[in-house]
Structure formats: structure tokens, C-alpha cells
């Protein structure tokens, strides 16, 4: 799998999405009133419907885990696009439904209730109603307050209904006035949807199954790093074919009775070898506690690699790595392998509550000595401040370096904003917040 995609791809992706949106906006033509002009209500009904259909298929493609998209945009950014895009599509659907009823009521001279009843009886609209019902269920259960109350497995099962909803909405779209009878557009629209769903099947289903069969991974050893933290080494066949890079992560599924249902994202905490991968897991909840006691020999399915924190992103000679919490895992792997050219400097800043509790500290100290790199522990309170001014005091030439950041989501987001405001070019900032795995 190629992972050589960069920020330029993100720009091209945005252009493609915008071009697609323009294509979806073609109902402007259908809204022209004979004799000149455009009927505003009709235009809103058509345009919102088509854009909702287009937005749905874009969301499916964005979440397909297609490496081209994941590498170009980054998983964190994709998650933000997904959340914003989901809300936008729901708003477009609501607009489309209301405008359609208003237009129909005007055409037929009906009140809103009668117009709604007539619209609901039209062929293809039942499928749309099912789609909307499912999407509302998904949206409600995805709201932050609801997410905290329901189990991940329940939420995930409901979220998968999105695919059913989008398929049902597709039936409605093909029968709608913007597509019906326009064979070329219908074929193009169908190919667009089929393509997006194929990406999902390819990267979310076939790829993990293929990896499970081809690489046959098993837990080789479990080493306690600190109280409540272990490093798990996984052995497998032909792992070099995965083209994993230090700094990347996999979605790991450990096939035990307690952990097989869900795949969890964990970064590689050491450079990948041709037959082994290592991850480091801190106990934060039921699953991560269960992994502390996992036995050698347990079968593992790893989906990946994912993530943008790789040397391939590097643009400058000098580098600063910033890690917070378990975010030290990918930074440690990167710290070992980053090339230090003559006269160059690599500095790792590791924020931790207490230097004595720093994870992988022995390895980090050893690596720093061996490579001639620098390692600073930022311990809280006091030295743990991570702001652009505090970083510029430590590293005056910060804006001329590449900066890699991995830490808790809030720390990562705040730091990204802060560093960008301080003048660090976006192309030199490579950041990923880790997801807390319970």
C-alpha cells in the first residue's frame, strides 16, 4: 500500500469535492421557470435534495479508510469533516423535505397537512422516510451526551445503519425529478454511489480480512513498562508488505472472548520489523485493562497502517517532537528512526505528570544518547506548560523546524492553533491527537 500522499492531495481533494458539489447543483437548470427567471422555492427544494445526496456519498467515501484520503487529510481532520458534514447533510435533508412540501402545496393549492400526505404517498418517498428515520436515530445517538450513556458496541451498531439509510435515500434520488428519465445522469450517479460503497467494502472489510489471512499475527510477548502499562509485541508473516512507518498506528483486534468485538487504535511504539510490530497500551478502561494480561499466542487482526506522523512528512532539517501522555508511543518510534543530518537537531519534548512515571524512559534516554538527539521531560506542574511562547523560549528557531505533535486531543488541538498563530507554517506542523481507548 502506498502512503506517499501529502498536504497537496488534501487541496486536490477539496477541489474534487467542490467540483462534485457543482455537478450536484445542476438542478438550477430544472428550476428555470418558462419565460425566464428561477423559482426560488423550487430551486431550494431541488438543490438541497441533490446536495444532501451528494454530501451523503462524500461522507461515505471520506470514512471508507481509503489510504489516499486518510494520508492526505489526516484522521483527526477527517473526523471533524465527518461531524460537520453529517450535520450539514441533516440540515439539507430537513430543508429539502420542507421546501418540497411547500412547493407541492403551492402547485396543488393545498394546505401543508394535505400536501405532506400527498408527498409521502409518492413512489420513492417511503424509502426517503425510512432513510431520514435512521439518520435521525444515528444523529441522536451520536450527540455527545447520548454517546456517554450508551455502550460503544450499541452506538457502533446503530451507526452502521447509516449505510442502510444512504442506500434507501439513493432509491429515492433515482426516482426524483432531477434524475428520473435522464439516463446518463442516473448511470453517473449510480456509479458514484457504487464506487463509494466499493471503497468501504475494499478498505473496511476485504483489507482487514486479507491481512488476517496473509499475516497471521499472534501476540509474541508482553512486557510491563510501568504500573498499568504494557508493551505487546506481535509476531506475523510478511509484515514488511504492510509498509508501516514509525509514527503510524493500526486498529488492533485481539481475538479473546473479551476483546474480539472491537478494534482499537494503538500506535507502534517501536519501528516495525519484518516479522514483528510493537504497541504500548496504558490501562484506561475495561479493554485496556484486559490487554494488560493478554497471553502470548492470542491471534491478532491488525488493520492499517494509518496516521500521518511519519518522516515522509518531514520538510526541514531540524525537528521537534512533542508528546503528551501515551502519545509518547509513536514519538518514541519516530525518535529512534528520524535521520539527523550533519549539523541538524532533533529534540523530543515529553510532557508527563512526573518524570519518574514517564513511559519508555529508559529506551528514550538510550536512544537520545545513541543518536545524539535531545530529550527534555516537561513535568507538571511547573515545567509542563505547552504554549507557543513557552516553546519558543526553549526552541527559538521553532518556526524553522518541522514539529510533530501527539497527545490528548485537547492538548493537540490547542497546540496546533497556538503554533500556527505563532507563525509556524501549516506544512511544517504534523499533529494527531490520540483516541482514549477504554
Amino acid at each position, binding site marked *: 500500500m502506498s502512503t506517499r500522499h501529502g498536504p497537496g492531495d488534501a487541496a486536490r481533494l477539496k477541489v474534487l469535492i467542490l467540483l462534485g458539489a457543482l455537478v450536484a447543483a445542476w438542478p438550477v437548470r430544472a428550476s428555470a*421557470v418558462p419565460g425566464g427567471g428561477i423559482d426560488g422555492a423550487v430551486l431550494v427544494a431541488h438543490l438541497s435534495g441533490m446536495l444532501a445526496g451528494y454530501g451523503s456519498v462524500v461522507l461515505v467515501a471520506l470514512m471508507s479508510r481509503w489510504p489516499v484520503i486518510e494520508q492526505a487529510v489526516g484522521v483527526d481532520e477527517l473526523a471533524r469533516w465527518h461531524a460537520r458534514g453529517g450535520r450539514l447533510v441533516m440540515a439539507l435533508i430537513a430543508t429539502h423535505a420542507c421546501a418540497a412540501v411547500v412547493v407541492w402545496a403551492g402547485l396543488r393549492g393545498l394546505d401543508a397537512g394535505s400536501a405532506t400526505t400527498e408527498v409521502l404517498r409518492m413512489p420513492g418517498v417511503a424509502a426517503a422516510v425510512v432513510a431520514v428515520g435512521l439518520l435521525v436515530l444515528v444523529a441522536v445517538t451520536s450527540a455527545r451526551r447520548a454517546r456517554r450513556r450508551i455502550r460503544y458496541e450499541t452506538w457502533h451498531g446503530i451507526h452502521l445503519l447509516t449505510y442502510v439509510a444512504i442506500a434507501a435515500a439513493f432509491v429515492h434520488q433515482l426516482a426524483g425529478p432531477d434524475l428520473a428519465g435522464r439516463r446518463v445522469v442516473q448511470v453517473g450517479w449510480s*456509479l458514484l454511489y457504487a464506487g463509494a460503497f466499493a471503497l468501504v467494502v*475494499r478498505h473496511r472489510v476485504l483489507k482487514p480480512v486479507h491481512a488476517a489471512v496473509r499475516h497471521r499475527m499472534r501476540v509474541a510477548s508482553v512486557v510491563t513498562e510501568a504500573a498499568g502499562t504494557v508493551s505487546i509485541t506481535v509476531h506475523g508473516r510478511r509484515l514488511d508488505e504492510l509498509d508501516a512507518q514509525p509514527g503510524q498506528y493500526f486498529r488492533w483486534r485481539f481475538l479473546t472472548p473479551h476483546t474480539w468485538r472491537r478494534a482499537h487504535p494503538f500506535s507502534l511504539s517501536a519501528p516495525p520489523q519484518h516479522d514483528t510490530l510493537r504497541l504500548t497500551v496504558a490501562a484506561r478502561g475495561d479493554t485496556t485493562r484486559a490487554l494488560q494480561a493478554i497471553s502470548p499466542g492470542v491471534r491478532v487482526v491488525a488493520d492499517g497502517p494509518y496516521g500521518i506522523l511519519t518522516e515522509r512528512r518531514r520538510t526541514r532539517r531540524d525537528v521537534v517532537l512533542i508528546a503528551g501522555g501515551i502519545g509518547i508511543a509513536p514519538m518514541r518510534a519516530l525518535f529512534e528512526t528520524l535521520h539527523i543530518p550533519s549539523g541538524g537537531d532533533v529534540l523530543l519534548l515529553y510532557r508527563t505528570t512526573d518524570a519518574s512515571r514517564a513511559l519508555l524512559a529508559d529506551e528514550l534516554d538510550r536512544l537520545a544518547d545513541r543518536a545524539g538527539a535531545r530529550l527534555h521531560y516537561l513535568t507538571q506542574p511547573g515545567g509542563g506548560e505547552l504554549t507557543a511562547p513557552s516553546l519558543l523560549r526553549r526552541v527559538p528557531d521553532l518556526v524553522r523546524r518541522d514539529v510533530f505533535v501527539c497527545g490528548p486531543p485537547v492538548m493537540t488541538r490547542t497546540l496546533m492553533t497556538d503554533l500556527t498563530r505563532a507563525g509556524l507554517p501549516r506544512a511544517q506542523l504534523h499533529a494527531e491527537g490520540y483516541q482514549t481507548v477504554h
Partner: protein
Amino acid sequence: MSAAPAGWWRRHGASVALACVTLAVGLTLGLTAPTTSPVDVPWPAPSGAAPATHRGP
């Protein structure tokens, strides 16, 4: 078959098969889609003009 094409098919065969299935599904859905819309109705024409067929919501 020589070794190189065999290797190519081993690496890309599944992708090619999936692309063919995707194409077939997309074409089938598009070519069997409805040809008329349930909301094709006579559109109210501007005052004084003859009614024209137009598409509703």
C-alpha cells in the same frame, strides 16, 4: 503465464474484480432506474402564458 503477471494479479486481482463488480452494479442500477418521476406535473405558467410541463419538487 509468466511470473510477473502472476504477481501482478495476486496483488491487484481483488481490486480489479471489485472494480468490475462496482461497474456492473453502477450500470445496472443506473440503466434500470425509473424513467419518469412521480412529480412530473404541469407547471403553473406565468400569467398570460400557456401552461408548460415542468418538474415539481
